[in-house]
């Protein structure tokens, strides 16, 4: 059982700009080892960007991200790739390799990072695909799968190496209720049984809260609220309440920053 106060990932004073837009402003958070941490927030708050920063695909303008004590962005290219072999990431689009079958996709990390004999690779692939309900689709190409199936196949690939740390980018989007239930169960079981550290970025509040141990709510580049799911559900902060209940009106803006609507409609046309 993982210790409670053991930090796996530490994000300190992170600032990140995309062109003229500030995505993160002095953001700090910690992700405990062996727990499921959910990162939630309105769309456009840079949740996916945060995962890419943790994975070292983007470089922060300020601040640091430490995984197991190593500053991700100070590592050499070789060390960074070694670190990534211990991470699994489920991309929003699935990102299956289109020139390979589903089974080859799942086998890919195993073939690259291990010297396991082909028969063992095959068995492992079948086990992972069985876990996501796609054993029968192993010989299909990614183009033949639906969006939800592609994401489940990608999940099988992400867990192929049993990584220490898994990042899920919108795992529930586009899933039917049955697949959703299976995925929630799977993520939760993977975490409890193998002690993976999991980070889930999602909009599906109820599903995510049902398995998360800790939740960060991010808005405007900062941590708006954090705590156990119950704490957030019971929060009286109007911004937190608005998000958790999904209300259109409230202090959290629904609109992308824009000049006044009235001015644009009736003002001087430039």
């Amino acid at each position: 059982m993982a210790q409670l106060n053991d930090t796996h990932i530490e994000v300190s004073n992170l600032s990140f700009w995309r062109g003229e837009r500030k995505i993160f402003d002095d953001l700090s958070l910690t992700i405990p080892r062996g727990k499921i941490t959910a990162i939630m927030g309105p769309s456009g708050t840079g949740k996916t960007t945060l995962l890419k920063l943790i994975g070292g695909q983007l470089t922060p303008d300020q601040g640091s991200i430490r995984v197991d004590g190593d500053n991700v962005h100070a590592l050499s290219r070789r060390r960074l790739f070694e670190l990534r072999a211990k991470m699994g990431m489920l991309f929003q689009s699935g990102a299956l390799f289109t020139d390979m079958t589903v089974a080859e996709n799942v086998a890919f990390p195993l073939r690259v990072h291990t010297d396991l004999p082909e028969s063992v690779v095959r068995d492992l692939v079948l086990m992972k695909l069985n876990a996501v309900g796609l054993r029968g689709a192993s010989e299909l190409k990614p183009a033949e799968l639906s969006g939800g199936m592609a994401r489940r196949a990608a999940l099988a690939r992400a867990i192929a190496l049993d990584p220490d740390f898994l990042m899920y980018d919108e795992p529930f989007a586009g899933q039917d209720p049955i697949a959703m239930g299976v995925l929630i169960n799977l993520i939760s079981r993977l975490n409890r049984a193998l002690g993976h550290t999991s980070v889930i970025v999602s909009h599906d509040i109820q599903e995510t809260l049902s398995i998360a141990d800790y939740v960060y709510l991010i808005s405007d580049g900062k941590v708006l609220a954090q705590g156990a799911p119950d704490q957030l559900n019971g929060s009286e902060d109007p911004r937190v309440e608005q998000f958790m209940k999904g209300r259109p009106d409230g202090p959290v803006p629904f609109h992308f920053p824009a000049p006044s609507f009235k001015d644009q409609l009736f003002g001087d046309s430039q």
Partner: protein
Amino acid sequence: MIQFLQKLGAKTLNRVAAVGRAGQLLSQSLIAKPAPMMMLPLLIRQLYFIGVLSLVIIIVSGLFIGMVLGLQGYTILVDYGSEQAVGQMVALSLVRELAPVVTALLFAGRAGSAVTAEIGLMKATEQLACYEMIGVDPMRRIIAPRLWAGFISMPLLSMIFAIVGIWGGSLVAVDWLGIFSGSFWANMQASVSFSEDVLNGVIKSLVFGFVVIWIAVFQGNDCVPTSEGISQATTRTVVYSSLAILGLDFLLTAMMFGDF
């Protein structure tokens, strides 16, 4: 005026930065520690896609260009009674100029654009990012095999183009127009030198192949990952490659054959 200068400055800076990124891509994909066991199957696959699948267009174009050369050469030379030199003319123009240049132009259109679009789509569908997150360097897995395949295929395609072209020329000049085949081939043999002509043609095609495939992989890797971005990158590959081929051809020809 200030705005114009600002725009000019920004554009120049962007271009310089792009050249820098292209250099970085080249060094990362080529200097990175080679892994032959992983590289070989990938390279063979790319040789097939980039080289073998370009064969049809190269062979057909080579044949027709050789036939046209034979016909044009004959109609000009026959006025001076030196139609026996058609073989020499066809072979020299093909080996020195047309084979490397036309093959490279066709290669940019057929293989270069495909490579750019493929890598651009991989970027747009997050496949490149996914390779990185799995701990596999896309420079070695995706970029390097394509670079090598282009570099290897281009001179071979160019040689095939020249051979088929010469055969096309002989079809027209010897079999159709009735030039004595002995003088057609003998003149060719006497005038085409291996070290001067054939070797220089091969050097040209190596340079062109390298430039085209470098532009193609760079544009794919550097494109904006949207459908519009990919289409622009594909266009840029063909335009930049064609201009680079024609410009470099003049430079190389001046260096190889210019008497100064």
